[in-house]
């Protein structure tokens, strides 16, 4: 594992990318940043720009138009190494939109996904548990 990855794990900056979600997952993610859950104690904070981010956090059902942008962001704009986290049922398997004409494929057939956090929406505890497990797993590989 590279030096960049070792540095990244101490303070992963997260870019929050909503690909057409109903905003419930987005609300729970913002809830993680409130003093009650305070995800900044793990060094995580939301980055304003994708170019400053180490973690790409994707919510929402993967529709035809937004996935063009997601692929573009992942392939061109994110500095590597980058960890992709799929939050919520929609980003994992499209949830109730699995038969929708506009959502042909799940997220992991477009870009490689490292962590899946299930729930509709997942509780802030579940999101933090998922991210902490990811950090622990990546640290083992160092």
């Amino acid at each position, binding site marked *: 594992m590279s030096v960049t990855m070792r540095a990244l794990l101490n303070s992963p900056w997260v870019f929050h990318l909503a690909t057409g979600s109903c905003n419930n997952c987005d609300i729970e993610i913002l809830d993680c940043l409130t003093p009650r859950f305070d995800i900044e104690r793990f060094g995580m904070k939301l980055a304003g720009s994708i170019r400053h981010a180490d973690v790409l956090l994707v919510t929402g059902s993967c529709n035809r138009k937004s996935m063009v942008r997601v692929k573009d962001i992942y392939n061109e704009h994110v500095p590597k190494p980058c960890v992709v986290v799929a939050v919520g049922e929609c980003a994992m398997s499209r949830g109730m939109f699995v038969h929708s*004409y506009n959502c042909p*494929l799940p997220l992991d057939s477009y870009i490689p996904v490292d962590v899946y956090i299930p729930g509709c929406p997942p509780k802030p505890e579940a999101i933090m548990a998922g991210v902490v497990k990811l950090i622990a797993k990546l640290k083992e590989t160092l």
Partner: protein
Amino acid sequence: MNRDAVLQALQDKFREQILDYFDKSPARVYIEINPEALVPAASYIFKDLGARFHIASGVDARRHLEILYHFSIERLNLLISLRVKLERENPRVDSLARIIKGANWIEREIYELLGIEFTGHPDLRRLLLADEWPEGVYPLRRDYKEWDKNAIRDRGV
């Protein structure tokens, strides 16, 4: 004018063109109108009665396609839904976008999702569907079939 006077004037003006009139509740009236008279009727409701155009909704009702144009007159607390029924083969109706600017985008959306042609629309292009979407496939029609061979419709468990 109160509610009854407004509705009576509307019925008197378009007596031959109104095919069905359904007074559902004090706040809601459905009027089915001949598609030829849609533009004068909508223009009368919008301009002369001072109504607000909310939205149009297109429905595939199996035997026909229909569009509901929802207008509200707020001082009367009244919602008027103008309904036009169109046949399934080659559905076509006059556009309201020339007299109501707000109807422009919703007509484009109905055009791409249900395949209803709006004659006289200033800019009838697709609005929301992806670029690779094939021509002549309308996803909100009841006879819509999956065209994308790569689509996965299970959850992988």
